[in-house]
């Protein structure tokens, strides 16, 4: 009897299997229309818009109180702060485990299907960053990942076998990869980190099938190129402007949008007079050629380590009766910007946290600097926001249902101190910071989830957090906003009012995108916390 029952169960499993692990194939067309298959989560920010929005609504205000942990996955090596955001496709979840492991999980149970680890050199150079990994891209039947030693690797989605492995940049010089690739058309777009090692930033496109490099956009211009006049002599070569997070894509305009990092050295500008293009900017590149279509520099001649590497959020809305193609960007410098994403023209901006460094912005969105807000020798200068800004790299969310932009905001300042900032040729000997910061003491800092009107940046509500949090945000068609606290709370708020509806203490801060998927007719919410990956669902 027992045998028969087991055989029946096995038969049921076999019957279920073909539908469940459907052929792992995610062609470009599926990612392009990711919004129409909300059961899956096919790209870093949920769709090319980077809206961090799920159309699923089974979990909503009426039942959120019952949300429970469904499963937990723990990586093979303990990790202090997972920042890995998953891709979910046809019953399989693809995650990374720092420094450079890719793992495929069964989305129902969290059981491991396969795992692949990069062979890293004994000493990986990671200057100004830690060897984290924020996730993979999936295209067709292949999974793509950037490694801590700056290789881009293509893996068979079925079993993790290596299809190709390209050496993108020299890790010994300080180049490293922490961000997820972006897959579009037949290409893999990949950025690099290493501004504090004074590398020169770039963004690459590779042929998804072969790994052949199709184009490279250097994020600082050479002498003779437009923008070269914004640098001191030779400074563009060790300039920073790295591209260490994910980007967005508008298929109609065929434009890739990518944020760029700070100039090097961070706090000492003696050798880099000028605006330092294209640091602390968002660049719009032709997806096929990598040619610059437009750029918008949030913080010209930046001196506070305010990278602009948060993914740009794309949305369409009506302004003054006219439908517009827009970009929302909650910048590390403390302002929320609305740009016309067809041409990069500034529409409006508002501070979303306390800021003291700009008197305001001019009609083109260029900041009007406030006096005495640059790093100084000795005790330093108190500036708001702090080194990690109003928000750092963690993704905000935009809900097309509410028209609101949700961001995990940091209310804090710091003393910025200028130091020596000479860049030595050759491999970096340490962080090329040219100074540093001194923290505020006492309990002066806090965080908040803030809901801003997408088209204006006007604050609609806030939910205060004990401390500034580095947790991305998810909004859903269920009228919910999910995010976390730095202390380890994972919570859901009412998307319209900010009222807390549910909370679960995970024991450690989350650092990855909360995402949502559906399997067997049940909606799941997924996030990481410290060392674990957690999936939640209704009973």
């Amino acid at each position, binding site marked *: 009897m027992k045998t028969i029952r087991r055989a029946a169960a096995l038969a049921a499993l076999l019957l279920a299997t073909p539908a469940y692990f459907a052929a792992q194939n995610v062609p470009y067309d599926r990612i392009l229309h990711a919004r129409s298959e909300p059961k899956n989560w096919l790209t870093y920010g949920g769709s090319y818009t980077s809206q961090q929005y799920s159309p699923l609504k089974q979990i909503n205000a009426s039942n959120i109180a019952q949300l429970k942990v469904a499963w937990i996955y723990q990586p093979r*090596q*303990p*990790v*202090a*702060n997972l*920042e890995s955001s998953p891709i979910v496709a046809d019953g399989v979840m693809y995650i990374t485990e*720092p*420094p450079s492991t890719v793992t495929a999980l069964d989305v129902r149970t969290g059981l491991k299907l396969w795992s692949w680890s990069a062979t890293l050199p*004994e*000493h*990986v*150079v*990671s*200057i*100004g*960053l*830690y*060897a*984290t990994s924020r996730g993979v891209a999936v295209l067709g039947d292949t999974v793509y990942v950037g490694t801590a030693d700056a290789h881009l690797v293509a893996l068979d989605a079925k079993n993790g076998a290596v299809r190709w492995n390209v050496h993108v940049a020299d890790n010994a010089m300080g180049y490293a990869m922490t961000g997820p690739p972006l897959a579009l058309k037949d290409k893999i777009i990949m950025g690099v980190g290493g501004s*504090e090692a004074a590398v020169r930033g770039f963004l690459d496109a590779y042929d998804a099938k072969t790994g052949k490099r199709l184009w490279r956009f250097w994020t600082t211009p050479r002498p003779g190129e437009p923008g070269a006049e914004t640098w001191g002599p030779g400074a563009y070569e060790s300039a920073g402007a790295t591209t260490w997070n994910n980007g967005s894509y508008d298929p109609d305009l065929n434009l890739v949008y990518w944020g760029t990092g700070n100039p090097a050295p*961070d706090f000492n500008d003696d050798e880099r007079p000028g605006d330092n293009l294209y640091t602390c900017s968002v660049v719009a590149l032709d997806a096929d050629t990598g040619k610059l279509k437009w750029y918008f520099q949030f913080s010209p001649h930046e001196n506070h*380590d305010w990278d602009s590497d948060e993914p740009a959020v794309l949305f369409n809305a009506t302004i003054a009766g006219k439908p517009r193609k827009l970009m929302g960007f909650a910048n590390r410098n403390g302002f929320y910007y609305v740009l016309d994403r067809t041409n990069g023209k500034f529409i409006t901006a508002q501070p979303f946290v306390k800021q003291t460094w700009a008197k305001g912005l001019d009609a083109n969105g260029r900041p009007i600097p406030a006096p005495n807000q640059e790093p100084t020798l000795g005790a330093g200068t108190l500036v708001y*926001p*702090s*080194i*990690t800004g109003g928000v750092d790299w963690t993704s905000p969310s935009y809900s097309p249902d509410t028209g609101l932009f949700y961001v995990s905001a*940091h209310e*804090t300042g*710091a003393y910025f*101190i200028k*130091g020596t900032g000479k860049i030595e040729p050759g491999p970096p*000997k*340490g*962080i090329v*910071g040219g*100074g*540093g*910061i*001194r*923290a*505020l*003491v*006492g*309990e*002066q*800092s806090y965080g908040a989830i803030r809901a801003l009107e997408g088209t204006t940046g006007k604050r609609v509500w806030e939910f*205060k957090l*004990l*401390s*500034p949090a*580095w947790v991305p945000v998810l909004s859903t068609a269920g009228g919910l906003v999910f995010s976390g*606290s*730095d*202390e*380890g*709370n994972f*919570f859901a708020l009412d998307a319209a009012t900010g009222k*807390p509806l549910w*909370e679960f*203490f995970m024991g450690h801060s989350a650092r990855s995108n909360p995402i949502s998927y559906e399997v067997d007719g049940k909606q799941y919410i997924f996030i990481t916390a410290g060392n674990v990956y957690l999936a939640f669902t209704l009973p």
Partner: protein
Amino acid sequence: MTAPTRILVAALALLLGGFAARAAAQDVPTANPTPADVEAGKQIFEQRCSVCHGLDGGGAMGPNIQGIPMRIGAPIVANTIKNGVTGSMPAFAGQITDAQIQQVIAYLLTLTRKDTATVTGDPAKGKLVYDSAGCASCHIVAGEGGDSGPELTKVGQLRGPGYLKTTLLYPGSDLPQQRSFLESGGMLDYMHIHVVTRFGQAFDGTRVAEDSFHIVIQDVNGNFHSFRKLDLKELAKQPGKSVMPSFKDKLSAAQIDDLVAYLASLKGAQ
């Protein structure tokens, strides 16, 4: 004793032995640094550590590490610098030598609060004041005493005489930073909390733990009280207040100085 139990006991003994050895090592910085070592450590710190830990070690994107070798032990700090923390802090093995790591540790030890006050009292007399003034009802020294206040076994190593005197006269007026947030600021240790529940019940105590949704306090009798913030009518943080009484009018100036001398002499297990 069954065989598995014996193995377990042996394993436990080994483990505990290991801990004891480590605990002993923790209290002793491993090098005898010269001023040149400290200066070299400062250079390395500013080149490699300060962007994340702040130029004064007070925290930036990484935590506050001022004087951390004293708090968690120099060997653990050396190990962390060498191997990093996966997914959080880079490993520096292969980039700096063991000797340089010791120089960084020597420098970190200089980043604690500067306390220029000197001990003027008599520690032996101070011990008598400690016993008669009731300090032991709330504080532990070498395993003896009540536990509602902070343990004082190593307080002379952690705090200077100026700080100790201020605390005896004006408890709660100068709270130590407990931890740093990722960017700046943080939480103060021993914050005095006053709460009123929605049913009108009031509680006072020292904060033990807090997150964005909950707070736990410990009252003067050592009892823990845990609250959901959404259920509270009032939650007041009261720096400057303390469950510890002031000894300003209870002891003479000489007694205070003797007590400070005694506390300053407490430097851990002898």
